[in-house]
């Protein structure tokens, strides 16, 4: 196919801001048209939280506290972890895969803002829709699960910072998984595996402090704990002070590492695109 010469790119990040903002707004609109799907996704999420509550209540039976956490603390952890994993989700993987598969990537590469920038705009746009929905859903989450306020004002502030870093990790992972499509054309299987591995190792089913030793060690080497376990542990006051800062540092390291990996994989992927088009 013939691709028109790329329009000259506006120079400088600030000059491109309106374009990014437009991508973000358009995505938000698109995502909103799928609101019925989102509603049923929420039903699934609430079922999951409710099931966790029932099962964990049966497991705790009449034990007061296990590993320093009573049932209410554990359920708050799981409720927030599941909500957060749902809100902070990579929305770019399937999009990039579709673009690569259907060859739409050629047009997108010729657009005046870079493809990565377009994808980031898409990610923010999706989040702009999901975040308010999650806030509206909080009362329901309170009913089906257990929710409590953060352990302290300080914990609340650190939690927000920690979620922001978690968002960074998720965004990079989403892009990396989408880029797999340049080699395999198909990422749905990988995405499904990511969904389950992430749910489990981020602490969405069992808090990490209840993992058996070796499994705990594995969980701490993986990036998934940065997506729920660290922020939520800060929220419930299970990690405080220096430990909380150390948690944030671990998250920041993952943001940087994965960001570098995105750059490397992206430049290789771009070379592949040329091969496919030739």
């Amino acid at each position: 196919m013939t691709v028109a010469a790329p329009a000259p790119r506006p120079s400088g990040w600030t000059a491109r801001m309106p374009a990014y903002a437009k991508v973000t707004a358009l995505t938000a609109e698109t995502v909103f048209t799928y609101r019925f799907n989102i509603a049923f996704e929420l039903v699934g999420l609430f079922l999951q939280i409710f099931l966790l509550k029932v099962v964990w209540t049966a497991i705790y039976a009449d034990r007061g506290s296990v590993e320093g956490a009573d049932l209410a603390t554990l359920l708050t952890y799981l409720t927030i972890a599941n909500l957060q994993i749902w809100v902070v989700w990579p929305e770019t993987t399937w999009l990039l895969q579709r673009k690569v598969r259907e060859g739409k990537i050629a047009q997108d590469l010729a657009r005046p803002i870079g493809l990565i920038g377009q994808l980031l705009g898409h990610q923010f746009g999706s989040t702009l829709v999901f975040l308010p929905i999650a806030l509206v859903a909080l009362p329901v989450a309170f009913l089906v699960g257990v929710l409590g306020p953060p352990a302290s004002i300080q914990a609340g502030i650190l939690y927000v910072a920690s979620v922001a870093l978690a968002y960074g990790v998720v965004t990079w992972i989403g892009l990396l998984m989408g880029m797999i499509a340049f080699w395999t054309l198909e990422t749905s299987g990988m995405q499904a595996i990511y969904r389950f591995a992430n749910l489990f190792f981020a602490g969405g089913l069992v808090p990490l402090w209840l993992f058996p030793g070796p499994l705990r060690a594995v969980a701490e080497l993986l990036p998934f704990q940065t997506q729920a376990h660290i922020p939520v542990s800060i929220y419930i006051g299970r990690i405080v002070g220096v430990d909380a800062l150390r948690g944030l540092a671990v998250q920041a390291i993952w943001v940087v590492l994965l960001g570098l990996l995105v750059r490397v994989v992206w430049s290789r992927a771009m070379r592949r695109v040329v091969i496919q088009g030739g």
Partner: protein
Amino acid sequence: MTSMLRLYVALAGAGLRSELQYRANFVIWIVTGAVYQLTGFVFVWVVLTRFEAIAGWTLGEVAFLYGLRLLGHGAGLLMFNRMIEIETLVREAEFDRFLVRPVPTLLQVVTRRFPVNALGDFGGGVVLFLAANSLAGVDWSPLSLAFLVLTVLGAALVETGIKLAIASLNFRFLSTRALVRVVDDLFSNFGNYPMRIFGGILQLLLTFALPVAFVAYLPATVLLARTDELAIHPAFAYLAPLAGVVIYGLAYLFWRGELRHYQSSGH
């Protein structure tokens, strides 16, 4: 009946051969199916290494229940998985061509493509069930083995009967995907646990409103000699495999009735 079976085998075989053209994806989908089902079990395993029991059920017993459900679920998927595509087929009016061919409509739909990920579901079920069986220490006899086989077949029919009933709604409503997902979630999340933990009302709902209990929990109480914990009459547990026949039969009648409302939208 036998000619029907021959047709099924021939069509399903063709579907399998076409899937085998994409080997890498074939393997990935099997792994995905297994991973999906086993994540839930890893949860149970991690929990029970700490807590010994859930509502009096040991790790071995919960694993047995879990494995039993997976066998039924996997068997159902293997036989009828493609039902989920009915929605798209109806909406895009591709369904037309199934109506004009000299093979039963539903048979063509369910054999259209081979459900590769179901091999993972079923395989995961076999592995888990065999491992759990030695832990749970079930006393097998020819009678209980026969009950097991009937249970798996019955469970496959319960799940697919419900899916068929929902799929039938497509002829009037054109969109049921979300409903399918919620019902699927209910079966695969709530069917794996000893239902005592859900308390009276929810347990009754999961038995008679949506027949989740008939898939694995009720038959498992028979095989594990735990029927005395049931809130309902034990006869329901012993006759659980029959539920599949009844539910699938009703669903098929419903399908036949609704099929008349197909409008070939877009033509």
